[in-house]
C-alpha cells in the first residue's frame, strides 16, 4: 500500500503524463504559433515590400544568431574563470 501511494504521488507530481503530450511541447506550440502567424502576415500581408520583408527576416535571423551566440560566448568566457 505504501509503495502504491508513493507511485501515485510520483505520477501525480510528474510534469508530463506517459499517455499524453508533454507540457513542454504544448508550451512550445503556444509560444511559436504567434511567431508563425507573424511570419505569414509579413510574407502575405499588404502593403508589401520585398525589401522591407527581407530586411525584417534578416533582422530576426541576426538577433536569433546573436542570442545563441551570446549563450556560447558567455559559456566560453565564464569557463575561463572556473
Amino acid at each position, binding site marked *: 500500500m505504501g509503495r502504491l501511494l508513493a507511485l501515485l504521488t510520483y505520477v*501525480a*507530481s510528474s*510534469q*508530463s503524463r506517459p499517455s499524453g503530450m*508533454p*507540457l*513542454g*511541447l504544448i*508550451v*512550445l506550440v*503556444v*509560444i*511559436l504559433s*504567434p*511567431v508563425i*502567424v*507573424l511570419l505569414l*502576415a*509579413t510574407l502575405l*500581408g*499588404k*502593403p*508589401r*515590400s520585398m*525589401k*522591407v*520583408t*527581407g*530586411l*525584417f527576416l534578416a*533582422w*530576426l535571423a541576426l*538577433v*536569433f544568431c546573436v*542570442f*545563441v551566440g*551570446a*549563450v*556560447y560566448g*558567455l*559559456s*566560453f568566457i*565564464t*569557463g575561463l*574563470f*572556473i
Partner: protein
Amino acid sequence: MTERQEKIMRPLRTTSREFWPFVLALALITVAFIYAYTIQLSQGLGVTGLNDITIWGVYIVNFIFFIGLSHAGIAISAAVRIMSLHRYAPIARMAEILTLASLMMAGLSIVIDLGRPDRAYLMVVNYAARIGASPLLWDITAVGTYLILSTTYLYLPMREDLAVCRDSFTGWRRRMYEITLPGYEKGEEKVIKRLAWWMAVTILPVMVMVHTTVSWIFSLLSNRPLWFGAAAGPYFIAAAVASGIASVVVIAAIVRKLFNWEDLLPPEIFRGLGNFLAVITLIYLYLMLVEQFTARYAGPAGEFFVSEAWLFGSYATVFWTLTTIGLILPCVYLLVQAFRPGKINITWTSVFSTVIVIAMWFKRYIIIVPTLTVGGSPLQTYTPSWIELTIIGGSLAALALIYTILLKLIPIIEMEEPHHG
C-alpha cells in the same frame, strides 16, 4: 526639422554637467558587480548565502523582477498600436527600451544563478531532448523569443527616426546612424507600420507566456508550499504588469523633468497610467488575499507554515511593510486620484510608483525564500552574502547604465506627431 523633433533630439545633442558623474557612478557599481561575480565564478556558489536547502535566493528574485519590468514596454506599446490609444504613444518607446534592457538583465540573472555557467551552451546542444519536461528551458524559449521579437519591435519603427538623426549629425555619429539603417528608403514606413501592428498582435501572447512559464518554474513543484497552484500564472502576470507600468511612470516623470518635456508628456498620460496601475495593484492585492485564504483554511500543513512565516513569523516585517506601505497605500492614493477629475499630481504619482516597484522586488523575495527556508525540512535560514548584494546592486546599476546610454543614442519619443485618440 520641426520644433517637436528639435525637442526630442535635445538629449542626443546636449549633455548636462551632471550626466558624466552619474554615468561614472553607475559604471563603478557595475565594475564592482563584475568583480563580485568573478569571485563567485572562481570560488563557486559557496560564497553566496545559498545552501543545499535554500537553492534559490536574490538572483532568482532579480530574474523575476527584471522579467516583470520587461512587460511594461510591450503592454503599453501594443495597446497603443492595437487599440489606437495614441495618447500614450509618447511613452511607448521609452517603455520598449525598458523591456529590452530589463530582458537582458533577466537573462544575465539566470546565468549568474548558475553554478557552472560555462555549461550554459548545453541548453542549446540538448534543446530537443530537454524541452519536453524542463520548465527552465520553456522559460528560456519564451524569454528568448520575447527578446528577439522585442528587439525587432523596437528597431523597425525607429528606422524613420534614426534617419532623422543621421541627417542631423556629422562625423562618427552620422556614420553610426548610417550603419543602423541598412537598405533604408523613404516611404518604407507604411510597410513597417503594418509589420509593427502584426508584431504587437504576436508579442502579446508571447508576453503572457513568458510570465506563465516563469511562474511554472515554481508552481509545477507540488511539494513546495505556496508555490504549487493553478493561479500562479495570473498572479505573476499581475505583478509583472504592475511593476512594469510603475517603472514607466517613474522614467516618464524623470525625463519630463530633465528635458522640460511638459508638452510632450502631458499630465493625462500619468493620469491614465496611474488609474491602470491602481486597478492592477488592486487585482494583485485580491490575488494575495485569495492565496492566503487557501493556504490558511484549505491548504496542506506546509502551506499553513509558510503562510504563518509570512504573516506572523520571521518574514512578517517585510511582508506587512510591502503590503501596507508598498501596495495598499499607493493603491489608495491612485484610486483617490482617479476619482477626482482634473486633479493629477505627477510627483506623488511617480513617488508611489517607485514604492510599488520596490515593494514588488520584496514580494518576489517573500515568494521565493520562505518556501525554501521554512517550507521544507530541515528548517534553514538565508541571508544574502555581500557578493550577492553587490551583484544585485550592480545589476540594477547596469540596467540604469544601459538605459542612460540608450537615452543619449536614440530618440526615446517617436518623432511622428501622435494622432489624437
